[in-house]
């Protein structure tokens, strides 16, 4: 690309400052909208995802139920054959004995697997004085569990990491209902017996399932309360990217003796909703970008028409068609780049302004509009505007390159 085409493009843009500003503003508005919409929808989706998956494993591995066996029964009284199935559903808790091997196998299996938490889960009844509440007992190694769910930093009181035998962390709503405070004792009755536990921590996770009815204990404590020996009931898998869940589950199921449940399969409707939201936002952005492209086309066409004679003179002086094309395509690129950068700045400012809004003074941590801003989004939007601007400018630029010098020079 020659210096002369740069010079001509820049001079032409500068000589019509209002037109240039108008074209750049059209791009700026569209890029601002794309950045802002993406940040907002991304933020809302992220919050929705966190609400959905924040407190649950992305993939849950449980021992595969045995396949119902076909049974062929020969009836002695007749010559017919009875074909049917025999249910093999078990009543006792299914468990995984050799889980240590599976944990290291799983953690090496896939790059998306962040952590595998051997977990013991089972039912229990919590008793405090004369009141009782049904609860779930969740036993896991606190350090590991905390890595996945960040329980420690959501504690209202006490501790989770470093939890000992005979200690438990309770959800804050459960604790409130029963009037339990730090260091209080309570009893839990499980299918195999009754244990007395000490409140070592109270947690507010924001997930009602956890805040309302779970007692977190150590793995060993849960194993003993549920009579599992050294076995666990589930392997909970947290992923680096939640949307890899289906893929990871599908990868594990055929090669391991587990039933692999992905959070995605169990939240189909939510995902369909998110997808519909993404698609409609994409459509809006598509049309906004298209409009910006048309803006550049129309303004540059005006520019070409106003400069027909100038183009003719340049051609007469020996400018090639490709040089003329460059001059006008460059203008489109420069307008789009300028507009794109300004628009990105605007979009980011707008998103941050919305992000400042808080639900209330009482909940300073909860923003009304969660936004998801990242460099990829901002740079991507600018790059998109440059590509669209350049492509759009090719229409007027080709028109300019096709100008016949004879026709325009003499028509004065």
């Amino acid at each position: 690309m020659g210096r002369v085409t740069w010079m001509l493009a820049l001079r032409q843009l500068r000589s019509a400052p209002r037109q240039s500003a108008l074209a750049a503003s059209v791009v700026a508005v569209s890029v601002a909208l794309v950045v802002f919409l993406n940040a907002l929808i991304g933020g809302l989706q992220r919050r929705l995802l966190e609400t959905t998956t924040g407190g649950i494993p992305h993939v849950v591995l449980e021992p595969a139920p045995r396949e119902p066996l076909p049974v062929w029964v020969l009836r002695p009284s007749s010559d017919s054959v009875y074909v049917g199935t025999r249910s093999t559903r078990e009543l006792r808790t299914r468990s995984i004995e050799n889980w240590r091997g599976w944990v290291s196998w799983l953690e090496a299996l896939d790059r998306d697997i962040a952590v595998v938490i051997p977990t013991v889960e089972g039912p229990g009844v919590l008793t405090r004085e004369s009141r009782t509440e049904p609860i779930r007992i969740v036993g896991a190694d606190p350090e590991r569990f905390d890595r996945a769910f960040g329980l420690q930093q959501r504690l209202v009181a006490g501790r989770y990491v470093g939890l000992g035998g005979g200690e438990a962390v309770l959800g804050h709503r459960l604790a409130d209902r029963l009037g339990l405070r730090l260091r209080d004792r309570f009893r839990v009755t499980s299918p195999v017996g009754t244990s007395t536990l000490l409140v070592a921590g109270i947690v507010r996770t924001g997930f009602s399932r956890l805040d309302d009815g779970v007692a977190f204990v150590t793995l060993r404590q849960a194993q003993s309360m549920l009579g599992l020996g050294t076995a666990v009931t589930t392997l909970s898998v947290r992923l680096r990217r939640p949307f890899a869940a289906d893929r990871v589950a599908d990868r594990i199921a055929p090669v391991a003796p587990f039933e692999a449940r992905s959070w995605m399969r169990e939240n189909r409707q939510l995902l369909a909703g998110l997808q519909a939201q993404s698609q409609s936002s994409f459509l809006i952005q598509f049309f906004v970008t298209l409009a910006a492209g048309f803006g550049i086309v129309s303004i540059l066409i005006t520019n070409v028409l106003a400069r027909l004679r100038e183009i003719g003179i340049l051609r007469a002086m020996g400018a090639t068609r490709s040089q003329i094309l460059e001059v006008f395509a460059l203008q489109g690129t420069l307008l789009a780049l300028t507009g794109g950068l300004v628009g990105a700045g605007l979009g980011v400012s707008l998103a941050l302004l919305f992000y400042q809004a808080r639900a209330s003074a009482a909940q300073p941590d909860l923003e009304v509009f969660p936004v998801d801003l990242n460099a990829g989004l901002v740079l991507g939007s600018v790059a998109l505007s440059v590509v669209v601007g350049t492509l759009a400018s090719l229409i007027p630029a080709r028109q300019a390159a096709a100008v016949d010098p004879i026709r325009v020079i003499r028509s004065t």
Partner: protein
Amino acid sequence: MESVLQLDRVCKLYTEGVPVWALRDVDLAVRPGEFVAVVGPSGSGKTTLLNIIGLLDRPTSGRVLLAGRDVSNLSENARSLLRRDLLGFVFQNYYLLPELTVVENVLLPLRLRGSVSARDRTRVEGLLDRVGLAAYARVFPSQLSGGQQQRVALIRALANDPTLVLADEPTGNLDSQSGRAVFDLMRELNRATAKSFIMVTHDERFATQADRVVRIEDGRIQPEAVTP
């Protein structure tokens, strides 16, 4: 001596609307350093002739040789490059680019070719100085008078060191004094640089001062009458 330009039986037929022969069997040869005036009534084919010589238009038949090379059937791109390297244009309405300064306008033909060497720049600035416009180098064309603008256009036409300068009514838009000054300057530069000039004009005063006058009527060149 070999001709800078040679036209052999060049015809041009315009087929849009009623077919019109704009040029019929035109033969013309221009020697190096020669100053040729082309005269004739309106619609006689002067401009068509200049467009064909300037590689802006193609002959319907016949042959055009520029610097010894047949240029009648070159591609669009090749013609652009030849215009850039061998030809200089002066238009009736000057046609300087309004958003470029005087010196930028003058250097434009060189920039279209690539970079401008220090030697080129010195030469072009010398030409500007010669026509008394060195002080206006950083000024935009709109701040100059018509005569000054045409002088700048003349220097622009010479900037790429062309073989042939084509001037289409270069004095047509100027008052008689400025017109005279521009013509004298063209003649002076023609003698000083030994470039060939072809000037289309209506003005007999200037035509008679050319090395040769080519009269054209109804697309035909009339027998030569004046050889000063």
